[in-house]
């Protein structure tokens, strides 16, 4: 099954009731899947007039307590940022998929990882973050899509699932978890006042001290998410004296490169952040006690590398970077050569 279709099927199985989206390459197959299958499952599909409208439909749907999602690619995600900021302010759960493409501007439609900063730093205006999940296989797209809805509900926060055109288009076997039957109760959801008192959802907090309290409350929530939801994969790290850090598509390519490098006797392994926010800072720090050389691969000019440097600021380690932005997909051979070059430098 293709990555984009997989996200759609996983979302339906996660109990997603509404999908709102606007066409943009390379994620159109997801919207198309929802148009056919979510409606068939009794859910709501609306092709909106813009990305901005789509994310605000998400706001409305989420406010009623329904599981809702939208998807787009880089330029469209920029347009959604206003709504994502409101979702964070309202503390509304929603899932936002970004199948990244080359940029800035129109860029191209090829796989890229240039939206790391935007995804992990909040992206829109104001003091907030969104949890970001970065799958690296079709199976993981299925698992993490379903988990994204759980995290969103558990912490009342928008959650971003981030991939790229390659993740969306590639086909792999996938085993879907059973459809979710029971959903968490959402006492805060707006359902009309009924016989009770009226309620409202607002992100407007005119009093500075009160707004500050809200800001710190969000920070505490992000700290809790960091403690409980940080995910990563370690690949061949047990005996490694050289660590690669990469996520998503790049991490897959790295695995091939690492196999090649290991055949030449280089004891290299991979640290793959699965959550980009929260970033797996602790595991990097633990590894930095024994590994002193880190090499960060990204399909960008270098964004996640900043988080690696922040995580290891107090450690005497060498952090190198190799990036291929613009929609260029590096090969395992290219990465293997880069690993080899840095390894030789490291051994000097």
């Amino acid at each position, binding site marked *: 099954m293709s990555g984009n279709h997989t996200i759609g099927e996983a979302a339906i199985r996660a109990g997603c*009731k*509404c999908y*709102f989206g606007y066409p943009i390459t390379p994620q159109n197959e997801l919207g198309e899947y929802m148009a056919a299958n979510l409606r068939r499952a009794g859910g*709501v599909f*609306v092709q*909106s*007039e*813009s990305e*901005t*409208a*789509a994310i*605000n*439909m*998400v*706001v*409305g*749907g*989420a*406010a*009623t307590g*329904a599981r*809702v999602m939208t998807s787009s690619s880089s330029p469209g995600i920029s347009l959604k940022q*206003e*709504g994502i900021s*409101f979702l964070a302010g*309202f503390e509304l759960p929603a899932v936002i998929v970004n199948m990244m493409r080359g940029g800035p501007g129109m860029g191209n439609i090829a796989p890229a990882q240039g939206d790391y900063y935007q995804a992990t730093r909040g992206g829109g205006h104001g003091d907030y973050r969104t949890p970001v999940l970065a799958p690296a296989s079709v199976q993981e797209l299925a698992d993490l899509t379903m988990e994204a809805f759980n995290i969103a509900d558990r912490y009342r926060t928008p959650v971003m699932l981030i991939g790229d055109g390659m993740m969306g288009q590639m086909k792999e076997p996938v085993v879907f978890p059973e459809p979710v039957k029971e959903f968490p109760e959402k006492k805060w959801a*707006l*359902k*009309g*006042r*009924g*016989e009770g008192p*009226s*309620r*409202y*959802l*607002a*992100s*407007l907090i005119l009093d500075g001290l009160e707004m500050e309290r809200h800001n710190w409350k969000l920070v505490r929530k992000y700290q809790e998410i960091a403690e409980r939801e940080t995910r990563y994969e370690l690949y061949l790290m047990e005996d490694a004296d050289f660590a690669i850090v990469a996520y998503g598509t790049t991490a897959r390519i790295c695995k091939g490169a690492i196999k090649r490098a290991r055949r030449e006797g280089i004891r290299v392994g991979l640290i793959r952040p699965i959550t980009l926010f929260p970033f797996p800072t602790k595991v990097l720090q633990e590894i930095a006690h024994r590994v002193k050389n880190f090499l960060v691969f990204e399909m960008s000019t270098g964004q996640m590398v900043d988080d690696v440097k922040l995580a290891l600021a107090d450690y005497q380690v060498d952090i190198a970077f190799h990036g291929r932005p613009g929609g260029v997909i590096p090969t395992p051979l290219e990465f293997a050569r880069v690993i080899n070059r840095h390894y030789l430098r490291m051994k000097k």
Partner: protein
Amino acid sequence: MKLENQWPKYYKKNVVTHYCPGCGHGIVHRIIAEVLEELDVGKRALLVCPAGCAVLAYHYLDIDVIESAHGRGTAIATGVSRANPDLFVISYQGDGDLSAIGTAETIHSANRGENITVIFINNAVYGMTGGQMAPTTLLDQGTTTSPLGRNAALDGYPLHITDVVAAFPGVAYAERVTVATPGGIKKTKKAITNAFQTQIEGLGYSIVEVLSPCPTNWKMTPLQACRWVVEEMSKEYKPGLLTDKREEKRKLKA
């Protein structure tokens, strides 16, 4: 006479609004509260309040409310209504909100015939930000961003957005009214009742445009402002029924 009994059920008690003297918002809020009670939909109502002076409507109306980003009211209302069709959904918006930044959302929610009601407060300026020119500002009308009066060559013409959407097949009911005279207020209540009934019957999109005084930003007394609505604004935006397709939609449903 016991005044208590006349207080609308869905209007909060013992609150003083932040609206300026002579502002139309309070009148429209009260009418909404009254009609919600009369049609018995307040319990399942969800109001989408806008960026603008009415952003604090949740302090006055005693129903569930969600705030909207500027211009996005009908997109949020769409999401609410689609996710939970049992809810009675009102999007309350001003002229800058609905006919400038939210034009796309307005046009397309109307064109989809969403089963929602839009209450459109037209006061020909951006109120909360201090009286800037809006798409609805009259020609020659002075505002902080058209200090010499709106000049068609530079600033374009007053936008009749309700007339635009009234032509759409998805729009079941559209009427323009004023709250500048007692007669106008009565007609406003009738129009809002019709619009709400349209939604209750599931006939699709309904919109009521209310020409509403903004004395503070117009630099007028409340009385002068009401007069200006009647004598100037009503010439550009003629009050009256713009479309009523309820009968044909009832037939389609049957």
